[in-house]
């Protein structure tokens, strides 16, 4: 004689919300439902259960689309399991904390991999597909904004700017494909010595930068760095990667506060920016060496820029502590060190 367990339950017929008091009897392979005078046999394999929960009642769906609510859910589950009822794999797995811990690790690894490798890789490829017209219109907007507010026509003599353009044009590039670019000189008393590259290939150089440079070659070194940004399509890549990061974080935190989402987004985007600066430095180092110039020239220029910045600002330390994670450029000291290492012959 097999052991029979009985469970008090409420049967809902799908027609009315009135519960019918019923009794469920489960033996090793057989299940009967007694409701009033009616007794029904049900195959255990034909049952479906709502996902099991620590608290609350168990819900059992019968083959005829009606269902039972069993108060003592935990012992029902145990009894059914003994009778050969199998929960779906996912539901069985999920109750284990080990699986949850694995999932946490998995998520962390996947998200980190996506952030560090997949997204930059995807953006690198997608950036090539962006039509030049889009880059052109993005850059035109930025240029219009800058010219309207921060930049003024250059005060440099014509022959100086022409000579810089000519020398740069004669240099050979470390890229396989020619890098389309246009150099624009501008006076920028409000910005000071600086240079920037726009997605279309327009490179803006401030008069102030040309003025503090120790030699023409140092200006060329900065131009080589900016050409690195153009050649690697950093403007478009940053726009793509940055918007994916912002999108994911807004989805995750946006329903609580958009500002709470903006801060981690800034930290994550800053890292991409620092990586791109390093790439542009590498490009410049290769380009300079290839043309018989020393990568140390760029290091020297960075040194001058740093000193100019320290001179003008009252606070002027390198970003330390937490603010380091928000910096868009790597520490100047670190950049100079790697550029100077690129100068010394490689000993193998």
């Amino acid at each position, binding site marked *: 004689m097999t052991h029979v367990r009985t469970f008090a339950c409420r049967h809902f017929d799908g027609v009315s919300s009135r519960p019918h*008091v019923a009794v469920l009897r489960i033996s090793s392979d057989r299940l009967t439902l007694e409701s009033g005078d009616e007794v029904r046999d049900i195959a255990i394999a034909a049952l479906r259960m709502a996902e099991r929960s620590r608290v609350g009642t168990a819900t059992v769906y019968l083959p005829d689309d009606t269902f039972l609510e069993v108060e003592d859910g935990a012992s029902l589950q145990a009894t059914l399991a003994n009778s050969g009822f199998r929960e779906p794999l996912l539901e069985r797995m999920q109750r284990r904390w080990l699986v949850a811990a694995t999932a946490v690790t998995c998520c962390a690894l996947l998200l980190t991999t996506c952030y560090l490798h997949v997204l930059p890789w995807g953006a690198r490829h997608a950036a090539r597909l962006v039509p030049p017209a889009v880059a052109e219109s993005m850059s035109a907007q930025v240029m219009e904004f800058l010219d309207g507010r921060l930049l003024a026509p250059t005060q440099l003599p014509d022959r100086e700017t022409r000579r810089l353009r000519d020398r740069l044009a004669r240099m050979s590039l470390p890229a396989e494909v020619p890098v389309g670019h246009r150099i624009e000189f501008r006076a920028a008393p409000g910005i000071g010595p600086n240079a920037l590259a726009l997605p279309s290939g327009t490179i803006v150089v401030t008069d102030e930068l040309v003025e503090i440079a120790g030699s023409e070659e140092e200006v060329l070194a900065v131009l080589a760095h900016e050409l690195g940004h153009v050649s690697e399509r950093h403007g478009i890549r940053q726009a793509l990667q940055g918007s994916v990061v912002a999108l994911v974080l807004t989805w995750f935190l946006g329903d609580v506060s958009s500002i709470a989402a903006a801060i981690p987004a800034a930290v994550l985007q800053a890292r991409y920016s620092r990586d791109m600066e390093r790439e542009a430095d590498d490009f410049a180092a290769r380009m300079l060496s290839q043309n018989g110039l020393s990568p140390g020239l760029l290091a020297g220029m960075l040194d001058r820029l740093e000193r100019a910045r320290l001179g003008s600002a009252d606070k002027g330390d390198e970003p330390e502590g937490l603010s380091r994670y928000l910096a868009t450029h790597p520490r100047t000291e670190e950049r100079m060190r790697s550029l100077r290492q690129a100068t010394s012959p490689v000993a193998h």
Partner: protein
Amino acid sequence: MPAQFQPAPSTSRSVESLTFTGSGAEYFRIWIVNLAFTILTLGIYSPWAKVRRLQYFHRHTRLGGSGFDFHGKPGAILKGRMLALLLLASLEAAYNLDRIAGIALTIPLVATLPWLVMRSLAFRLRNTSWRGIRFRFAPATSDAYRALLWWPLLAILTLGALLPRAYREFKAFQHGNSRFGRDAFAFHVTTRAVYGVFGQALAMFLLAPLAIGLAAVGGALLASGMDPRLDLAWAWLFVGGFVALYAGFVAVKPFLDTRLQNAVWNGTTLAGHGFASSLRFRTLLWITLSNLALTVASLGLFRPFAVVRLARYRVESMAMHVAGSLDDFSAAQGSEIDAFGEEAGELLNIDIAL
């Protein structure tokens, strides 16, 4: 002999509270496994994840000893998401190609949006049940266009002056067209009441911080007088004003959530039954802020606990004023089930809500 044949008791009124039995620890495991699978499958798993999440929250929301249930099929949700993605991608492509083409595509898209939203509200309700009786959503298509296109448009054109009215029309559309089995919900909230809530929010969270900010400016300027260190006063003013405005900005959503949920549910009936919602602003604000702080501090791992905590508070502040008995609802039969929901077939069973 069985209970069905007893005479129905004369309509006595009783209060049944809603309870929430979910736990953060349990939901955490569902959430993290969902998240891992969703990332691994590049998002394809997300409809399955959504169904499991909705089932968890429905089944743990209980009334009269029974849980709600969700029966949506992940395939329908996947279809809806693919459709939404396709529409967005074609829109993006059109704008990249040519601005005129983009606008030409936007207009029909905006025009179909109310219909899509209506379909997805219907999907959600038709797949929700309590004690085996399904909910339904049965609006006229013209109502959808009035509530989801006409009123929002008017709200924008009047720079928000008609926003409370548009909100009321949306809720009237949503609640007034819902059915439970054979019984219909009805919506009785007045436009005046909704304007009251929005007006109070405006006064408390925008005008008051603005006034404090201006007072801070004035104070700072007076205090500094002709002092050359006027900069410092400006800095303080800026910080003070910003803090006041941001505090208002953070608090306004819980405030609106509280007052609107209370107003909407206190003004909703189902046949002869009523509802009561008694959320408190301070409690909801505290839950929102502490959830945010803990979610950020735990790098996101607290999120499932936060969601459960919020759901528990929102559900448990609700009660149903039952006229008679909860046992007397019955499912809609044959001809009562509108063609709209059922005959459109599998293709149109979509859910675009993300």
